[in-house]
């Protein structure tokens, strides 16, 4: 537990030193939101479309930023050192923690900017949105980290990452869009309990499978 926390702190400090991911991801978010606003122009879009677009922005920002944890290790040539100093599950825990913090930070910025820029994005049931936001971000981090590990060992890393991640993330995105629409419409927790249960199941299943399979990816 201590070792994975130290690995996470190492990643955090090297990130804060260069601020590469924070800057480029923030600019990516601003650019994506601008493109959507330009394309919409002066048209008003319906509330359901706004809810769906929210997760589109989240998905593409994640695809842009979450593969860095493993790909940067390969590019800087430090992955062999990492294999020597820690067990595979420790390495995975450290990287997962980093991606979790990054996903929460990114998506909070997206949510704040989104609700400021789109008038139709009014959340009548804010508690439901908060719960589905937290659970969805956890699932996003879990799935993206294991796929990042896979593509870091393959070629064509940049283009392959969204291609591999999208089918795996699809149950999460479909359910989260549904939950966001529920919170915009103001439905109760009682009606949304199936979708919440699906997201919880998805999170648990992906986490378990990731830990079981990471050893095979990591060892050369």
């Amino acid at each position, binding site marked *: 537990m201590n070792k994975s926390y130290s690995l996470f702190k190492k990643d955090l400090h090297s990130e804060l030193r260069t601020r590469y991911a924070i800057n480029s991801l923030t600019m990516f978010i601003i650019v994506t939101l601008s493109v959507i606003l330009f394309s919409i122009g002066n048209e008003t879009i319906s509330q359901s479309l706004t809810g769906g677009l929210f997760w589109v922005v989240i998905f593409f920002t994640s695809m842009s930023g979450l593969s860095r944890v493993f790909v940067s290790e390969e590019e800087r040539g430090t992955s062999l050192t990492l294999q020597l100093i820690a067990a595979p599950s420790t390495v995975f825990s450290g990287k997962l923690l980093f991606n979790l913090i990054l996903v929460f930070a990114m998506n909070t910025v997206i949510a704040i900017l989104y609700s400021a820029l789109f008038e139709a994005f009014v959340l009548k049931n804010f508690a439901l949105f908060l719960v589905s936001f937290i659970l969805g971000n956890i699932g996003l981090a879990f799935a993206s980290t294991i796929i990042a590990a896979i593509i870091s060992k393959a*070629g064509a890393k940049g283009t392959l990452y969204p291609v591999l991640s999208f*089918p795996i993330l699809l149950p999460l995105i479909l359910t989260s869009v549904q939950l966001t629409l529920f919170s915009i419409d103001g439905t109760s927790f009682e009606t949304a309990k199936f979708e919440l249960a699906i997201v919880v199941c998805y999170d648990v299943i992906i986490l378990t*499978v*990731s830990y079981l399979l990471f050893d095979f990816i990591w060892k050369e």
Partner: protein
Amino acid sequence: MIWKIFLFLLLCFVSVAGISFPIVDNPQAWYEFPFIKGLEQNAKIIFFHVPTAWLTVIAFFMTAIYSFKYLRKKNLDDDAKSYAAAQLGIIFCILATITGSVWAKFAWGAFWSWDPRQTSIFALLLIYGAWFALRSSIESEEKRATLSSVYAIIAFVTVPFFIFILPRIMTGLHPGSADDTNAGPIIDFKMNANMQLIFFLSLIGFTILYFWMWRLGYKSLIYRDKLNKQLIIRS
């Protein structure tokens, strides 16, 4: 050899019976099908659409099993078996999507309406495509087999969400969705006995066909690899 002839006759019978037997209101003869409300004349595609969808899931299951076996034993033959299964799987997935959208045009009026089950078969197509894309991006043989096995297993655990959970809880047009009052023409047994017989014969026939094609596929892959590595001397 004899079972191949038997399989050929079975599939011929199923195809001819499925297409030519008439659908009437009150089936009296052994070769007549009942009129199912909501499906009417286009019900016959069920004999071909459901087996292709069933087979693509079976193929995915086989890919996942042989991926699991490869990760345990690191035997490249298991990788060849999962590759052959995935090749057939993507073909049947394309067929299921096409037959499904043709049926959708006649039953629901549009070729594609993002019904949850249609989305699921499309997601399965994306998974197969991503799996092949991953394989083509890795040069080393063992690494390619290891990474594609890991991805196949991760993708396989999301399949229950697509096939069983999402279509049943979301509202949609497909039989068995959240707003459908019956569970579909099979479970409610609106099909009478001879229609069910043709349906299950079709399912069995296509499954045997799949296993035969899969066996041919992986054996040819293994022989090709061995020939490439000069393990069998060409005479």
